[in-house]
């Protein structure tokens, strides 16, 4: 099981899920949090799940009683949370290096 390729969109998903690491999030909610369209988000979730960074489960409801079908929830695994923190931190370091002089200039 290889590590997923980290792109800007993948980082958005990881950062969005890291906001509440133990929370169970459904796809539509992640779309709203990340601003990614469905066609971008779901392949990313599938790749993260294959890599073991994310796990999913179906909502336990009675569709007939609720009047709607069960939805699928996603959550970070322990490995995924660690990897996500590492990747997001790496990106922050790279961004701070890139914007460092600009930030100092603004502060001055």
């Amino acid at each position, binding site marked *: 099981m290889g590590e997923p390729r980290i792109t800007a969109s993948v980082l958005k998903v990881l950062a969005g899920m890291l906001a509440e690491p133990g929370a169970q999030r459904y796809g539509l909610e992640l779309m709203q949090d990340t601003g990614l369209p469905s066609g971008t988000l779901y392949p990313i979730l*599938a790749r993260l799940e294959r890599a073991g960074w994310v796990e999913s489960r179906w909502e336990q409801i009675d569709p007939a009683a609720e009047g709607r079908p069960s939805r699928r929830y996603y959550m970070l695994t322990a490995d995924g949370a660690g990897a996500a923190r590492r990747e997001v931190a790496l990106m922050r370091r790279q961004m701070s290096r890139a914007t460092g002089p600009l930030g100092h200039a603004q502060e001055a």
Partner: protein
Amino acid sequence: MGAVDRAARAAVRAAARRWPEDLAPVMRDEWLAELAAISGARRKLAFAGSLAVSPAVDEPSWRERAVVVGRLSALAAGVTLLAAVATNLARGSAALAPVLLLLGVAGLALIGRRVRGSAPRSPSASIAGVAVALFAFLFAGNPVPMMPFMGAADIAPAVATWGIGVALALRWAAATGRRWIAVAGGVVALDLATIAGSAHAATVLGVPAWTAPAWFPLALLPGDIVAFGPHFSDGTAVLGGLQASGPAFHASEILLANAAVSAGPMLLCTAFLIAATLPRPNNTKPLTLEPTSSTPLSHQPTDASALIHRLSGSVLWVHEASDVTPPAQEPIGSSPLGRGPSGAVAVAMRRAGARLEKLGPGGRRAAAGMVAALGALAVAPVLPAAGGDADAVLGKLLDNSTAFGFGFVEHPVGLGAVALLAAVLAMRATDARTTA
């Protein structure tokens, strides 16, 4: 359930079918559940539409697809233009035309072998690309047709028949593992394509249909070898709305010369496609257009400079020299100039090779693109384009020296596009040579 819901549900079902088998039903159920939770027609359609047009989890991204399509298009356009130029050169040589066409076939086949690594997995994509390029250059690229029978009714059936025929031949050859099937099938496809593209002309000119199987081979021969069909003793004809007059002629001369304009390039393109598809002999190294980053460039002379040395006759010197010694460090006076064909030429070529070494991969790439673009800008304007002189057209028809029309380079946009295409192909070839 309204029409929007039905459309959105149909879209996500279609999108799910493109996913891997183990995920498809799960994703379909998940997306249908999300659709049920979404309020508003616009949001439902946006959710479903994005899934419908986006690549599935294991499919190449749009960027990757665009790169593949771009490379395929450039290659198809380049091969078609090269085949057209080679055909024009051959046809302009009168009696030597068949020999030069055969040389062109060999040359395009060689190029096909070299670029095999960059060809798509399915040869149908390559064939479709070349077919579109042929149609575009012959029809849309020539506002004034070169020949009297060069309308959509002539070119479209020819190109479509050729494309389908070559695709079937290659598929059959691949299924059976027999290379000769591709060659024989390609010849049959060319014959059928020539018939399809000349049927309209034959009907107008009154050429008997039983002669149709011979049109393709006869079109490749110089004029005045055979004649059949009605005889126009007064030497007058109406060509594309223009009245032309000349010596007496047979209808077959018009038909065959007209067919030759597309038959030649299609023959050369067929050679390229078959060579690019047939299994590669063990001793031929493919010139892949996919750059790799693993080649230790600093430890070997590049192919570009090696080619320069080979041309200057000093290939032995290259092999004998240290791999890490660039040619520029070798004193000119101590190099074995006697091994080359000419001392002055060898020195010049070696200096050029040394300069190429100094440029680095990016510089060589840019230099190759610039040279190719400038070359295209210099050559393209002298390529034949359609003229309004019907008498001249009739003369070319009668001696079968007709030419593939390059009317598209008369417009600055067309000329610029050809130069850009030459630059792109040259840079890609340089990339491939550098990393080979």
